[in-house]
C-alpha cells in the first residue's frame, strides 16, 4: 500500500495548537509518520514540553520529534529527516496548512509514476476554518500571499537526495522550498499540479504559524535564490550521513586491454573531493579480461560496477552501455588511461545551471614516458557555431552531462573514432547548452597505445563529418553567419595553462614523480586511521589560547603514492594538495629511500629550519591578514618558545590583545618552532605590551610583526616615556593617592 512521510519544517509555538495540528496530520490515510522539528526554545519551555511529549507518548507513535539546535541548522535537520524518512515519498510542509482534502494516494501515485517530478500544492486561505468536508472550499477561499507559495510540496526521497537536499550554506539564510524548486526547474524538472481537489492546501486567516519560518518578502527570497546559479548543493560537506546518500553521478569508463592503467585511472576518481558517485567500467572485450577484473577489484570499492562485453563492440557501444547501466542523474566521462584532478567532479557538477545543461573543461596532456606536460584550452560555450568556425569540440573526458541526454541521443555505434565530437555536435543541435568550467580538469596520458594516436586519420574524418553536418543545417549565408558567431567564442583564463608542471605534477602517476602532500584538518587522527603516520614530515597547528579552538592543523607528508592519495581522501580529509617533483625513476626501493633520508640528516638541518620557519612566517602573515581585515592597522606581538610548548602564553601581559594564538610548527629531524601570537589593533598597543612584558624580565625573545617603522617606534617610545614621567610626578606629588 502506498504510504507517505509528512515532514513539518518547524513547530507551532503554542503547544495545544501544535498538538491539534499534528493530530490532524497523523489521522490522514497513507501517512505513516510525521516528522516534527522542535526548536531549542520550545524544548526548554516546560509547558510546551509537558503538553507536547504527553501527546507524543500517549497519542501516536507516528510522531517523530527531532531537535533543531545551533549545531544543526534547520536545513541540516530537515535534510537528515528526509534522508531517514520511512517512505519513498515525503510531503514537506513549510506552513501548517490543512491537507485534509488532498488525496495523498494520488500524490504518491503521481510521484511513483514520475520519480523525478515534484508535486506542488496551491495554498489558499479560508476566511473561516469552520467549513465542512463536503463544501467546495476553493470558491470560499482566496489565494495565499506570494510569501506562502511554497507551503507544501511532495517529492521522492531519492530525488530530494539527488538534488542534495536544502542548501546548508548560511548564505542561503535558511530558505528551503523556493530554492529547491528553483533548482529543480533549472534542471528542467517537471512541477506537477494535481487536479483542483488534490492540488490545493488550505489555511484560515487565523491559522497558527510555524515559528522560525522565513519572514523575507518574495522579492528578497528571489534575490537570495538567484544569487547562486548552480543546481546541486552541499557537494563536499553535507550533514546527511554517507550511508543514507544516493549517488548523483556515474563515472563512465570504457576500457580495453588496459589492465595496467585502469586501476590508476579509477583511483583518480576515488580521491575526488565529491564522493557520492558510482563508477561504471565497461570492459569492451579485453583479451585478458581477468587481468582487468583483478585490477578493478583490487581497489576494493563497492561503488565500482564492472560490465563486460564478451567481444569488442566498439567505444560507442561501451559508452551507451555505461549509460544504460546507471540510474544516476549525471554522467562524468572518463578514460581508462587518464587521471582526474581531485576536484574534477565537483567542478563539473557545480557548473551545471539554468544556462549550462552539460559542462566541459580544459585538460593537460602528459607524456607517459618523461612526464612532460602541455595544457589544452578549449573555447567557451561549445555550440554548432564553434564547430562551423574551427571544428573543435569539448574534450570528451571533461564532460559532466545529464545521463538522460546520453540515453536519448546515444553515441553513434557505427563510428569508431571521434564519437564524442559527433555526439557533442548533435547534442548542441538538439538544444543542449554546453558550458566551460574554466579549469583544467584532468591529465590526459599521451602514450604509444592510445586510440587517438593509432586512429588519427579516422579521428580527423570524424571531426570533418561533424563539421560537414552543419552544411545540411544551414544555407551558405547561414553557415557564414555561424562561422562568424563561432569566432567570437573566447578562451577562458585557465589556471596552470602556462606552467602545468608546477600546478599538476603532483597528480602524475607514481612512475613519474616523487610526491609530497599537504593536508588540512585533523592530521594526526587521519594519518593514524590510514596507517601512514611516519610519512608526516611536518605539522603546523594554529590554536586559540583562550578557547582552545584549533584554527588550522596542516601536515606535510612525504613520498606519498597514488594509492595513499585515495586513502587520505577516504579518511575524510577534504582539503589536500599534492605537489610533485618529476623524477622518471621515482619508483624507488626501500634502500634508496633510506639513503635519501640519510642525506637529509647529514646535510640539511639548516634547510629544514628554513622550511619550518618559512611555514611559520607564512602562517603569521595569514593571521596578520585576518587581524588587518578586522583592524586596519593590526600588528602582532610574537613570543618565541625555544624549549617547551606552552599551554598558555604570557596572557598577563597581553590581556588586551584582540587575538591570542599558539602556533606550533614541527619539521623533519626534530626541528620545531613554537610561538605565541597576540594581535593588537595598532603598533602602539603592541609596543606597550612588549614593554609591559619586559618589566617582568622574560627569558624568551619577543618581537612585533611586521616591523614598526623606526620613526614611529621612536615616537611611541617617546610618548610612553612622557606618560611615565607625568604619572611619576603625579604620584610623587601625592595628588593621585586616595587616602
Amino acid at each position: 500500500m502506498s504510504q507517505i512521510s509528512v515532514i513539518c519544517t518547524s513547530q507551532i509555538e503554542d503547544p495545544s495548537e501544535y498538538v491539534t495540528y499534528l493530530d490532524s496530520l497523523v489521522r490522514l490515510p497513507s501517512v505513516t509518520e510525521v516528522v516534527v522539528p522542535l526548536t531549542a526554545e520550545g524544548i526548554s519551555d516546560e509547558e510546551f514540553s509537558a503538553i507536547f511529549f504527553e501527546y507524543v507518548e500517549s497519542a501516536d507513535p507516528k510522531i517523530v520529534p527531532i531537535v533543531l539546535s545551533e549545531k544543526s541548522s534547520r536545513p541540516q535537520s530537515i535534510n537528515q529527516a528526509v534522508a531517514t524518512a520511512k517512505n519513498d515519498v515525503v510531503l514537506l510542509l513549510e506552513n501548517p496548512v490543512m491537507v485534509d482534502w488532498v488525496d495523498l494516494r494520488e500524490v504518491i501515485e503521481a510521484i511513483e509514476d514520475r520519480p523525478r517530478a515534484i508535486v506542488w500544492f496551491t495554498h489558499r486561505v479560508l476566511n473561516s476554518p469552520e467549513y465542512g468536508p463536503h463544501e467546495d472550499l476553493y470558491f470560499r477561499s482566496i489565494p495565499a500571499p506570494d510569501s506562502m507559495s511554497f507551503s507544501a510540496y511532495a517529492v521522492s526521497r531519492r530525488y530530494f537526495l539527488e538534488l542534495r537536499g536544502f542548501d546548508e550554506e548560511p548564505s542561503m539564510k535558511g530558505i528551503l522550498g523556493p530554492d529547491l524548486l528553483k533548482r529543480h526547474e533549472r534542471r528542467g524538472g517537471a512541477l506537477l499540479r494535481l487536479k483542483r481537489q488534490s492540488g490545493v492546501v488550505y489555511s484560515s486567516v487565523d491559522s497558527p504559524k510555524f515559528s522560525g519560518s522565513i519572514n523575507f518578502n518574495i522579492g528578497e527570497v528571489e534575490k537570495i535564490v538567484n544569487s547562486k546559479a548552480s543546481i546541486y548543493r552541499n557537494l563536499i560537506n553535507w550533514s546527511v550521513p554517507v550511508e543514507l546518500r544516493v549517488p548523483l553521478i556515474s563515472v563512465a569508463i570504457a576500457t580495453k586491454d588496459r589492465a595496467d592503467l585502469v586501476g590508476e585511472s579509477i583511483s583518480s576518481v576515488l580521491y575526488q573531493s565529491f564522493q557520492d558517485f558510482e563508477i561504471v567500467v565497461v570492459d569492451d572485450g579485453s583479451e585478458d579480461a581477468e587481468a582487468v577484473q583483478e585490477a578493478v577489484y583490487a581497489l576494493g570499492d563497492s561503488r565500482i560496477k564492472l560490465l563486460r562485453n564478451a567481444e569488442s563492440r566498439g567505444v560507442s557501444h561501451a559508452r551507451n552501455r555505461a549509460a544504460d547501466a546507471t540510474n544516476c542523474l549525471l554522467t562524468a566521462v572518463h578514460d581508462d588511461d587518464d587521471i582526474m584532478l581531485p576536484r574534477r567532479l565537483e567542478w563539473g557538477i557545480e557548473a551545471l545551471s539554468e544556462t549550462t545543461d552539460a559542462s566541459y573543461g580544459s585538460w593537460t596532456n602528459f607524456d607517459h614516458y618523461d612526464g612532460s606536460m602541455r595544457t589544452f584550452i578549449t573555447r567557451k560555450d561549445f555550440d554548432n557555431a564553434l564547430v562551423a568556425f574551427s571544428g573543435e569540440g569539448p574534450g570528451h573526458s571533461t564532460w559532466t552531462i545529464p545521463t538522460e541526454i546520453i540515453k536519448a541521443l546515444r553515441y553513434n555505434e557505427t563510428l569508431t573514432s571521434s564519437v564524442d565530437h559527433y555526439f557533442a555536435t548533435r547534442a548542441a543541435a538538439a538544444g543542449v547548452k554546453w558550458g566551460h568550467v574554466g579549469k583544467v580538469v584532468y591529465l590526459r596520458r599521451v602514450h604509444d597505445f592510445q586510440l587517438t594516436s593509432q586512429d588519427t586519420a579516422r579521428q580527423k574524418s570524424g571531426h570533418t563529418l561533424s563539421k560537414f553536418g552543419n552544411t545540411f543545417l544551414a544555407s551558405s549565408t547561414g553557415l557564414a553567419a555561424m562561422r562568424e558567431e563561432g569566432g567570437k567564442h573566447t578562451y577562458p583564463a585557465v589556471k596552470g595553462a602556462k606552467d602545468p608542471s608546477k600546478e599538476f605534477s603532483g597528480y602524475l602517476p607514481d612512475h613519474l614523480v616523487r610526491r609530497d602532500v599537504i593536508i588540512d584538518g585533523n592530521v594526526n587522527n587521519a594519518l593514524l586511521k590510514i596507517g601512514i603516520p611516519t610519512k608526516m614530515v611536518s605539522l603546523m597547528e594554529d590554536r586559540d589560547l583562550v578557547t582552545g579552538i584549533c584554527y588550522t592543523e596542516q601536515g606535510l607528508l612525504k613520498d606519498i603514492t597514488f594509492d595513499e592519495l585515495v586513502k587520505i581522501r577516504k579518511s575524510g580529509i577534504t582539503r589536500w594538495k599534492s605537489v610533485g617533483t618529476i623524477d622518471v625513476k621515482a619508483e624507488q626501493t626501500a634502500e634508496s629511500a633510506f639513503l635519501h633520508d640519510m642525506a637529509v640528516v647529514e646535510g640539511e638541518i639548516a634547510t629544514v629550519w628554513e622550511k619550518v620557519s618559512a611555514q611559520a612566517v607564512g602562517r603569521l602573515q595569514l593571521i596578520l591578514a585576518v587581524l588587518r581585515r578586522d583592524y586596519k592597522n593590526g600588528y602582532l606581538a610574537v613570543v618565541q618558545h625555544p624549549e617547551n610548548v606552552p599551554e598558555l602564553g604570557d596572557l598577563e601581559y597581553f590581556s588586551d590583545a584582540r587575538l591570542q594564538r599558539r602556533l606550533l610548527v614541527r619539521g623533519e629531524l626534530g626541528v620545531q618552532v613554537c610561538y605565541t601570537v597576540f594581535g593588537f589593533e595598532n603598533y602602539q598597543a603592541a609596543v606597550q605590551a612588549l614593554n609591559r612584558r619586559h618589566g617582568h624580565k622574560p627569558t624568551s625573545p619577543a618581537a612585533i610583526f611586521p616591523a614598526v617603522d623606526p620613526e614611529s617606534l621612536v615616537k611611541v617610545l617617546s610618548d610612553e616615556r612622557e606618560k611615565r614621567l607625568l604619572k611619576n610626578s603625579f604620584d610623587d606629588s601625592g595628588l593621585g593617592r586616595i587616602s
Partner: protein
Amino acid sequence: MGTAKRTKTFRDLKLESGFTSAQFILETQTSELGDKGILITGTFTDRSGKTIENEEISSSYSNALQAKFQYIEEIKGIDRIFRSKPFYLGIPAFSAEFTAVEWGNGFSSDQAFHESLSGVWLVLRNSGRGTSWTYRVEP
C-alpha cells in the same frame, strides 16, 4: 694605554626567516648617554652558521675593534631615545651577535652604562622576502 672599555653583548639573536638589515632603537634610563657615547659592533652568520664576510656588510669599520659597527646617535628634540644607522647585509643573516661598546669619555659607572642599555629594540628586515620584525631585545 687607556682603560678597558665597558661592553655588553647581545648574544645569539636568531631570526629563522633571515634578515638583510638591522637597526637599533634605544631608550636609556640615565642622562649620561647624551654626553658619552656607545657604538654597536655586529657579527652575522648565514643559514649554514658561517660568519658573513665584512664585504657583505654595509656599515663603518673599526680597525681598533676589528669589527663592523654603527654609532648610537641622539635624536634631536627627543629626550633619551637614541638610534643607530642600519647595518645592511648583502646576503641574509639568520643569527647575529651585537656588542655595545662605550667610547669617548666613558660612563661614570658600570650601572650607568648598563642602565643606558635597558630598553633596546632592534628592527630587522628581509628585503628578499618582504618580511620585517621589531625585536624587544631582552637583557
